[in-house]
Structure formats: structure tokens, C-alpha cells
């Protein structure tokens, strides 16, 4: 996206006054001859927590990957108004690196200065409760701790838009509560959080609930 495009997007303000931070327009994606997304469109604003629901295989993860810039799209466009933090569904991690080494490597990728990276890593370790395991390699971590690291990598650079693919998977109740508290703080701080979840019971927590059906987004 060009600088002018970003400025244009940031200038786009909804009636409620919230800035559009993420916009998908008529996104299309096929795998071979099987169309998965057939013109999916939606907008997400600063300070919003948006849930995407849908049946298994409906294309939720594909949509999130495209929104994150991790997958090619066949048609349409995606506009992003800030840095993206993306947490994939699988634990995409180096099996023989420790938590600290992961955070160091991804801090380099995000271009964070070492002192800032260290402060953020400490804060995330505290909030997501993995500080006891920071020197353990991924192979030695439980599924829940791996998921916390997966999440911490996505949040390390303090992104404006956070895309989370089933972030609760494997988390214990304390960690889940920690995540919910983080999400509330992040919303108040003006972040835009889009997540895929199956926990429809907590739908009152979301500012918008979107359904992905037949390759298109339906509100409500």
C-alpha cells in the first residue's frame, strides 16, 4: 500500500468518528478450482473488537491470512491503516529455540531497539504468564505455553491491528482471563482486534460479530 493510500485510509473516518484501520474489499480466493472467498468485504475500526465466525472450512483462517498479508489474494483488495500483528492458528515456531530467543529474533524482524524489545518482552511475559519458561526451548513447552509465545510474537511490536486465529486454543483459565484483560486494555488504547473464535457465548464482548458464509461476510 502506498503512503498516499495509508493517509487516505487513516483520513477515512466513520460516522461514529472511529478511524478505519482495516478494510477488505471484495476479497476473492480460490484453491485450485474451489472458490473459498467470493467477494468478502468488511471494515474494522480503531478501538473495536471484531469476531469472525463460520463453519469449519468456511475460509476464516484463509481470510485472516490474507488480511495479515500472509497469503496471496486472487481479487479485491485489503487496506491496512497500521502495523499488523498476526497470530496464526498453528504454533508457527522454531522447535529448538527458547522463548527469549524467539522474542529476540522477531524483535529484530520488527526493527525494535534492544531495550524496547526487552521491556515489551518482560511486559508480555508478565501478562501472559510465561516468565518461568523463558529459557526453555519450544519442544519442551506445553501446548498452552506455546500458544502464549505464538501470541506474544504477534503483540511484541505493539501493532495497531491485531489479527488472531483462535487465540484461546490451549490456554488455561488464568491465561484466558489475562488475554481478555489485555484485549480490553488494547481496545481502550485504540487498537483494532479481529479474531476468529468458536466461543459464541461471549459474543456480547464484541463490537461486531461477522459470519463468513458462502465466501462472503454477513453481519450480525
Amino acid at each position: 500500500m502506498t503512503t498516499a493510500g495509508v493517509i487516505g485510509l487513516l483520513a477515512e473516518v466513520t460516522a461514529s468518528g472511529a478511524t478505519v484501520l482495516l478494510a477488505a474489499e471484495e476479497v476473492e480466493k480460490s484453491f485450485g478450482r474451489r472458490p473459498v472467498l467470493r467477494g468478502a468485504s468488511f471494515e474494522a475500526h480503531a478501538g473495536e473488537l471484531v469476531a469472525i465466525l463460520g463453519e469449519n472450512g468456511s475460509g476464516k483462517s484463509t481470510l485472516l491470512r490474507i488480511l495479515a498479508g500472509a497469503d496471496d489474494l486472487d481479487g479485491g483488495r485489503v487496506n491496512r491503516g497500521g502495523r499488523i500483528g498476526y497470530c496464526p492458528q498453528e504454533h508457527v515456531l522454531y522447535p529448538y529455540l527458547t522463548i527469549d530467543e524467539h522474542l529476540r529474533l522477531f524483535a529484530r524482524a520488527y526493527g525494535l531497539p534492544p531495550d524496547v524489545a526487552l521491556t515489551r518482552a518482560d511486559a508480555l511475559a508478565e501478562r501472559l504468564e510465561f516468565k518461568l519458561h523463558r529459557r526453555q526451548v519450544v519442544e519442551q513447552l506445553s501446548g498452552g505455553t506455546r500458544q502464549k509465545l505464538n501470541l506474544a510474537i504477534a503483540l511484541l511490536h505493539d501493532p495497531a491491528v491485531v489479527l488472531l486465529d483462535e487465540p484461546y486454543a490451549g490456554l488455561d483459565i488464568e491465561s484466558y482471563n489475562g488475554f481478555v484483560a489485555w484485549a480490553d486494555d488494547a481496545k481502550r488504547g485504540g487498537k483494532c482486534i479481529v479474531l476468529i473464535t468458536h466461543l459464541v457465548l461471549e459474543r456480547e464482548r464484541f463490537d461486531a460479530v461477522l459470519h463468513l458464509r458462502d465466501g462472503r461476510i454477513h453481519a450480525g
Partner: protein
Amino acid sequence: MLGERAGRVGTAAHLLLRDLLRRRIALLLLFVVPALFDAVVLATTAPREIEVTLGALEDHTYGRTSVPGLDQLALAFEDDGSRAVDEQRLSLVFLGVAAVSFLACFLAFNLVHKRRDVDARLVLAGYRAHEVLLAKLLVLVVMVLLLASYETLILTPWVVPRHIMMLFVGLFFGGFIYGCLGMLVGAVVKQELEGVFTIIFLTNIDAGWLQNPIYYAHSQSQSLIRALPGYGPVQLAVAGSFTDDEPRSALPRAALCGAIALVAALLAFGLRIRPARQDRSQRVRRALHYAKVMFVAYAIWLGAFEIVGHYAATLHTVDLTSAWDRATPLIPAFVWPYEACYLLPVLSLFVIKDWRRFDVALVALLIANVTAFVVYLLVPVAFPRPELGSSLSERVLALEYAADFHPGANKLPSMHVAMSWIMVSAMWRQGRRAIDIALAVLLALITIAPVFVKQHLLIDVALGVPWGLAAYWVAGRVYRWRTGV
């Protein structure tokens, strides 16, 4: 800026190496397998002198013969490459290269396959794809240096090599080439098991079997063995260990193989981890589709061309050299326009706008080749090649000569010329006039180049031009008939 980038690559390389070496099985493989291979050799072979053939020491020319019943051209050896060596020491060196090749291939596969998703995540987070590629390459080189050094160290007391550095270089190239192939396999295959089987298959057949100088000496298809990636490294290691002779062709071959394997590995892995393209136009998608089609078509063509050529070379050949051919001087610099022919298909992806032209070109290539194969089998042509010097152009040309069929095949008509005319016909008048002028100049150079580098005779080229044009014309008619467009 450069320092920052170097720092990013350094951090990535350091941590990726750590990630690889913390795997206990990797360390076990690194130190135990080479020693195990050597122990097996020492336990199962006895010191005794045997005769082997080292292809890289062969020095031969093709000359005319008047012996009745023999071909018009016969092989005359100045050095047939045969040497007497100790079987036990030879086995140690040969299996040493095989062990390094296998381990490097396996480690590189591990470096890429299991980690490609997280590597892609690293790129998504802000690393440049080429920075991750460079980091992986650094890790691979460090691993191969480590392996080659260790293998040299444990071989030296038993082998007592004449030139330890050449032994090390052979081991290094074996590891590097197969390391790159391991990366390639890791980037391409989906399942780990498929990858492991591919690696075992590749390394066993080439480095672990066909490259054995004992087997090579009696093989009926030595040219095939020479074409495999393990050839250069094994020849370097064996010649360096047991002779004072210079294995002339082994080092450039090993370097060329290494370069090709490296480019293929980096391309395949780079495509795996590249950032997503979210503004890809219809044109780019079509070009990528045709690039894939072209790659598959090229692989099929190469296989068919090699099979026909190898068979035709065993038939009774004729020499159609004319007085004009004899009068035409060898100009090695023409090897560059000659090689430029291989760029035409790639160029077509950028130039062609009407993609139906590409379909027609593919049909034309099929027609031109199938009809030419019939002629190749009916009239196998062979002619003597000139002596070459040591300039860069002549070295490149020497590789062309070495890769050709002996004593000769697949010459009349020149497919080099015919296929060039087909590709340029497809690209003609698709863009600006300047492109057409550049194409015309390039085509003219490609057309005359085979004669000046003595890859073809005048008659081959004279027939190649109408062959290509006729095939393109027929293909156009066939395409119109089939599609109605």
C-alpha cells in the same frame, strides 16, 4: 544501513544454527555417521591394489579412422583415466564424500522443511526474504565446512592423501551441492517422509553408488554418470588423494553444479517464504502460469532429447562437413549469443501480450521436435570438434562440447536455431518496435552462432530456420482449427 542488514542476517543465522544444532539427532549424525561409514569400510575391505577409471583425468580426442567396420569417427585416448589405487583407501574416500553429501542433504532439508512456515512468518514480521535466504545459506556453509573438515580429519590417518586440500575441496563440494539439493527438496515436498525418501534415493544412487570409480570404470553410460551432481566432488577427492594429476574438468563441473543447485534451492525456498502479493494483476498470474507450463515442457523435452540423442549416437554416423564449414573459423566469443538462446523462453513471458501466441509456440515446439527426432534417428550426424584454449568463452564452450553426444547426434536440423525462430515468431510485434529490432538482432546472432562455435554445420542451421518457421505456421493452423480463434 548495510551494518543494520548484516546485523539482522547475523542474528538470524546465529539463531537458526542454534536451532539446528540443538537437535540431538543432528549432532549424532554429524559425528557418528562419518565414523561409522569409515569403520564399516575398514572392517569389510582389505588393502589391495585395483584398477579404476577416473573420468576427470581422461584426455581424449575424436579423430577420423580408416579402419573398416569402425565408425567414421573414433575415440583416441591420450589418457584413458585408468589408475591403480588401494581399494580400501579408495572406498574410504568415496564413502567419505557420500557420507558428507548425505548428511549435508539431510541437515539442509531439516533446516528448511520443518521451519519454512516460521521462516515465512519471520518475513511477514519484517525480515526481507533475501535476508532469511542469506542466513540459511550461511548456516548451510558453516555446516558443510564443519562436516568436510571433520571428514578430512578422520580420513587422513587412513588415507594419507597426496593433496589434502583437494580432498577437502571435494568433500566440501559434495556437501555443498547436496546441501543445496536438500534445501530444494525441503522447499518443494509437502510431507517429511517424502523428503526423507527423496534424499535417500538421490544420495544413494549418485554419491553412494554410481560415482564409485570402480563402478564407473565398467559403466556403459559414463556420460550419464558425469552429468550427475556427485561426479565433480568424487573426482576431486579421489584424484587429490591418490594422484598428482590435475582433474581438469572436475572443479568447474563441481562449481557449476553447486551454482545450479544453489540457484534452484534459493529460488524454490524464496518462493516459499516470499511475502504475499496482494495486487497481482491478471497479466502476472498468466505469466506465472505459463512459466510453470514452460518448466514442465522443458523437463519433458530435455528427457526426450537426451534419450533420442543417446540412442542416435550409437548408430552409424555421417559427417556432412562442407568446404564452407572448413572455411568458417572458430570464434569462441559466439558462445555467448549461442547460450542466449536459453533466455528466449524466459523473455517471452515478459514480451508476449496475446497468450494464444504462447500456446501456438508450444504446439510448434512439439511439432518441430517430434519431426526432427525422426531425422536424428535416420541421419545421425557427427563431425570433429576443434581443440579449445583456456579463455572463459572456450571454457564455457568446452562444457557444451562435454555435454554433447559422442561421437555426435541431434544435429540436423539444428533445434537450437529452429526453437529460437519459433520463440521469436511468438514474440514478434507484441510490443514496441525497439523490442522487435532487439529481437531481430538477437535472433540473427543466435542463428549464426552455432556455426562459429562449431556446434552445428551450415546445413544444420540452413535447415533449422525453415524447420522452425514451418512448425510455427502449421501450429497456427492447428490451433485455429482446434479452437476456432
